């Protein structure tokens, strides 16, 4: 279990021996936060709320630090060209919202060897998203991973339960719990920001209370079937796992997108030969 927490010295000290994703508000704090966590804990990564990639000053002491850079945009390539080498050398994934410019930006960065992840944080242009997904999975030359597509494709099993790909967004309570500055525990960042905690104190981290909440969340999909939710009848269920169903009265194009994605994954497996599907030892 990894703990996602803010960069608060007092809190980090209380997490002794844990695996921690530390969240910082500015790129200049990355190295210091990583060093602090590593004194007593295992650092999973530094999650950084960043400025656009074109405005980032890459620092030498980011080397060896796993970084999740949450950037609002990529910016103009002319301002990035001189940073590409430095960015490529880092253990970095750039997170971008799903606006049209960012989809193009993600493709550019990935084609240059910089790992990216698109977030489903607004109403996406599903056609553009499908185009990027196809590039991510079937691109003719090697490029850096474009997530969540790579993770979804790797974990997708047409005849079994697929992996929960929410982990690429740190949104999977079976792997990530979120703490606020006071050490209160939430199952997701969204719930943490909404003040919806499953335990009010860090001491409950290993309690049955938290364990039970995690198990309940893992089984929450059953309610969709019981309620006859449209996601439960969707042909893309196996791949999407209703991750995007919140607040929707009906599919907004997501069903066609994930259905197409299942086809693309199949083509990818036929192209590369999937070890996962082979029964032979």
């Amino acid at each position: 279990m990894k703990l996602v927490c803010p960069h608060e010295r007092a809190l980090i000290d209380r997490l002794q021996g844990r695996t921690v994703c530390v969240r910082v508000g500015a790129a200049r704090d990355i190295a210091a936060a990583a060093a602090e966590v590593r004194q007593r804990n295992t650092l999973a990564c530094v999650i950084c709320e960043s400025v656009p990639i074109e405005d980032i000053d890459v620092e030498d002491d980011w080397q060896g630090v796993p970084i999740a850079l949450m950037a609002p945009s990529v910016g103009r390539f002319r301002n990035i060209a001189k940073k590409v080498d430095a960015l490529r050398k880092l253990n970095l994934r750039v997170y971008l919202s799903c606006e049209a410019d960012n989809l193009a930006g993600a493709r550019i960065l990935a084609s240059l060897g910089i790992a990216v992840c698109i977030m489903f944080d607004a109403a996406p242009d599903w056609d553009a998203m499908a185009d990027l997904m196809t590039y991510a999975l079937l691109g003719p030359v090697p490029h850096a991973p474009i997530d969540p597509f790579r993770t979804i494709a790797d974990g997708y099993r047409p005849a079994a339960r697929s992996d929960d790909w929410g982990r690429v967004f740190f949104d999977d309570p079976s792997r990530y719990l979120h703490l606020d500055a006071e050490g209160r525990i939430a199952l997701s960042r969204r719930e943490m920001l909404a003040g919806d905690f499953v335990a009010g104190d860090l001491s409950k981290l290993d309690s049955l209370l938290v364990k039970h909440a995690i198990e309940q969340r893992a089984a929450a999909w059953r309610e969709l079937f019981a309620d006859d939710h449209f996601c439960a009848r969707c042909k893309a269920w196996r791949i999407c796992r209703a991750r995007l169903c919140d607040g929707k009265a009906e599919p907004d194009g997501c069903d066609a997108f994930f259905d197409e994605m299942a086809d693309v994954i199949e083509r990818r497996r036929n192209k590369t030969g999937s070890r996962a599907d082979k029964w032979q030892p």
Partner: protein
Amino acid sequence: MANILLTNKCVRECPYCFAGQEMAHSPANEYTSWENIVYLADLLQASGERRVSLLGGEPTLHPEFLDILLYFIERNFDVTVFTCGIMSKTKLDDLKEHVAGLPDSRLNFVCNLNNPEQTKTSQSESEKLHEFLAALGAWTMPGFNIYRPDFELDFIFDLTRRYGLKKRLRLGIAHPIPGAANESIRADDIGRVIERLYAYKDAFERLRLRPSFDCGFPLCRVTDEQLGWLVRLSGQIDFKCKPAIDITPDMQVYCCFPLSALNRKSVFEFDSFREIVAYYRGLQKRIRSEMTGLYPECGDCNHLSEETCAGGGVCQLVNRLDPSRLRDIERAHSEARLSS
């Protein structure tokens, strides 16, 4: 090499323009998208291509021209930009700032120069060209399209000296475009063109400026003396016609501007750039099997059979073919691909 047309817009109206027909039929507000730029970079890389040309219209009119140029450089391509050099001061300053550290082997501007004495050129056009050459002369190779037999080259020698341009002059012959009224050189005038060029022998040698021929120059119109001079000065001179693959902003592909209406395809119909080249090479062969060369004697010429001369460019030959026959060839070529 692939020619990527970033836009169909242009700021000039050259009397010989071989892209005019193409531009007239394309939306003016169309630019190559980033998605397609990345796709093309991948397609070329997968085919082992390491060079790419950026064209237009005027490629620098693409709002993200500089970004695209730097992207191809970052992807390890050597880039040639065919430009008229006319651009805003801001754009020129940006360009200068960002290419300053690049070796001239990675980036080459071929600046298409018109003689202001012979081709209508406005004062501001001329000033902007000089600003471009002053800023980026070290990365720039002069280019000149010959569209009248009495062309004059003194201005190019002057510009080359003044701005330290690369010491190679790319010379093209303006070809007639089917259905267009562009000024061009008739096949019978090519000998005069070569003579005229040879008259500048001393000026070329003084500057050590090496002429290089674009396609369409037939070897038989060059005397042994002229050929000796050309080879001594340039090292190698080419009389072949190779398919130049042009890719439009909307990802259509064809082979050479003058043939833009012929067998146009979508890039997405092909799996590799090699396949595109092979397709258009095949089309050229079909056309050449109908008409071997520009002149009647081409059919019996050893240089043609030994492939040291192409007997003129295919674009010059198609004008002499019956349009209905040309359509038959086009159809047969498409069908042959489908059946294979």
